[in-house]
């Protein structure tokens, strides 16, 4: 009786063509970012250059890893609505290996960024000596390098099974993906926290925060979802996956972005409130530093950029279903992530007389743009190499008929 459920699949595009404009814009961003970093390095401003490099590299690494996290969450939760757009986060995860290697190059600039990378400073400081078994460059390279390798392995397993299913069909690949996703999320929670500790938390090796790992994860989740939203909205408005991806799917992705935006405020405020309430000098140093030397306006702008504006804009239902209204929000959230990373890295470098002064982050922004451009090139390359839709996924019928 139920005739339309057996109806023919909408025509699957052979490959997703990437508009030349996107490739050119990404390439231009890489040139701008590369030029800015090269200028900073050649002018001898090593701290500035490595700060910019760290911000950009960690920004892009978060995007790449979160692509796999998105896939894992959806696989584990049985989110059939997201089947038709799964190739987008899958392609994002292609960045994990190149992005991980690029991020690890921060080790070369560690003396410019990290106090604990100077053996003489460490030996003269009891606290840093105590932390030295963890906070040293060899452990940095081993633990972060191992994390990148583990993510790469899980990426090969999960995305490989997904693409094998396109050719062979069958339920086996779905089971593999689900099992691997569960294992990956556990491993990811630990490894991404360790990466956050080394790359960002250890910029101020005296400071600690129990909220930091979850905050950095939330940053990656919110920004990664913003990127997914951006791509999905562009695909819907271009009609590239007509019949597979429509405003119902976009609505759900928009709800994810809305949820992460609220969650970010929750986490960031938690970190602030715990420190404010306890009022322990070791902890308050973090916010005092960001309230002096001209950093206060940057700090105060962050909740508006990353929470208040996107949250209020996304409240109406139509704002989450209309590409034209979703795209600006996604871009704003992605910019806000740069802002937050600048606020994490910028004030942390330099001590006492050499304390960093707030400045317009021109080089940092250019560097981040460059990394996003490089990420985009890898992403579009990966996206254009596979079938645009997982045509043999058991959840496909449910995704096609999804209403939100």
């Amino acid at each position, binding site marked *: *009786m*139920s*005739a*339309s*459920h057996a109806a023919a699949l909408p025509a699957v595009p052979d490959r997703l063509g990437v508009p030349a404009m996107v490739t050119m814009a990404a390439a231009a961003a890489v040139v701008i970012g590369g030029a800015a970093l090269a200028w900073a390095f050649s002018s001898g401003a090593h701290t500035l250059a490595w700060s910019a490099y760290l911000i950009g590299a960690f920004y892009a690494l978060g995007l790449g890893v979160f692509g796999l996290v998105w896939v894992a969450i959806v696989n584990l939760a049985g989110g059939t609505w997201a089947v038709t757009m799964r190739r987008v986060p899958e392609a994002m995860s292609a960045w994990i290996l190149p992005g991980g290697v690029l991020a690890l190059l921060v080790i070369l600039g560690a003396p410019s960024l990290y106090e604990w990378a100077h053996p003489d400073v460490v030996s003269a400081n009891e606290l840093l000596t105590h932390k030295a078994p963890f906070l040293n460059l060899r452990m940095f390279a081993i633990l972060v390098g191992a994390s990148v390798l583990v993510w790469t392995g899980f990426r090969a397993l999960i995305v490989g099974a997904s693409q094998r299913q396109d050719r062979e069909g069958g339920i086996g690949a779905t089971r593999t993906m689900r099992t691997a996703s569960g294992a990956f999320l556990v491993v990811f929670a630990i490894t991404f926290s360790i990466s956050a500790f080394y790359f960002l938390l250890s910029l101020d090796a005296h400071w600690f925060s129990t909220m930091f790992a979850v905050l950095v994860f939330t940053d990656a989740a919110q920004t990664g979802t913003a990127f997914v939203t951006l791509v999905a909205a562009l695909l819907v408005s271009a009609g590239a996956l007509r019949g597979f991806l429509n405003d119902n799917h976009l609505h759900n992705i928009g709800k994810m972005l809305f949820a992460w935006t609220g969650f970010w405020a929750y986490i960031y*405020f938690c970190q*602030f*409130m715990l420190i*404010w*309430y306890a*009022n322990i000098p070791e902890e308050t140093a973090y916010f005092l530093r960001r309230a002096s030397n001209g950093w206060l306006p940057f700090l105060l702008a962050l909740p508006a950029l990353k929470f208040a504006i996107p949250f209020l804009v996304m*409240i109406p*239902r139509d704002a989450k279903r209309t590409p034209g209204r979703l795209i600006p929000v996604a871009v704003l959230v992605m910019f806000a992530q740069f802002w937050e990373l600048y606020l994490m890295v910028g004030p942390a470098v330099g001590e006492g007389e050499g304390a960093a002064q707030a400045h317009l982050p021109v080089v940092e922004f250019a560097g981040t743009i460059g990394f996003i451009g490089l990420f985009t090139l890898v992403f579009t390359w990966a996206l254009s190499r596979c079938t645009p839709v997982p045509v043999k996924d058991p959840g496909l019928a449910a995704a096609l*008929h*999804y*209403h939100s």
Partner: protein
Amino acid sequence: MKPTSITGVLGDFHGPDEALAAAARVRSEGWTHFDMLTPFAVHGMEDAMGQRRSWIPWVTGGLALFGILFAQAFQNYVMVYDWPMNFGGKPHASWPAFVPITFELMVLCAAIGSAITAIVAGKKDTVPQPPPLLVKTGATVDRFVLWISSTDPKWQADAAQRFVQSLGADDVRLVEVEGANHA
């Protein structure tokens, strides 16, 4: 024989897609007093039936705002004027300390208020004249049942019956009740 009157017509469909198509046809043919009784929530039925969006989100928003204002007013009153206490030497009106309570009261007011509103609002029938008891229609088991009420401005018993048959419905039946039409 007691006098009877017809309150409407019922017709059965066997799947969600047929029900969706039927609802869209009924709407496009200009019927307004109709309902679709289904064993589960059919995705897209509101659109097919042409129902407008619920007004309950506005209630949720209003109650959320009320929760925020209430929590702020109450905490400032208690902590600053009524019973000021010294916590770690912090000012009495310390906004960060008020945020968690404000957030929770916002959620509490909005969630409970929306649930109560939805329950109360749900008691109102979507059609001026409701269909027979749901269990008698088969919609609690496996049928997707269309109901067109005799209060519809287009109502004519024969025409309505023929129309529902033309939609492909099985077991099209007029519903008669004893006594005068209670519409």
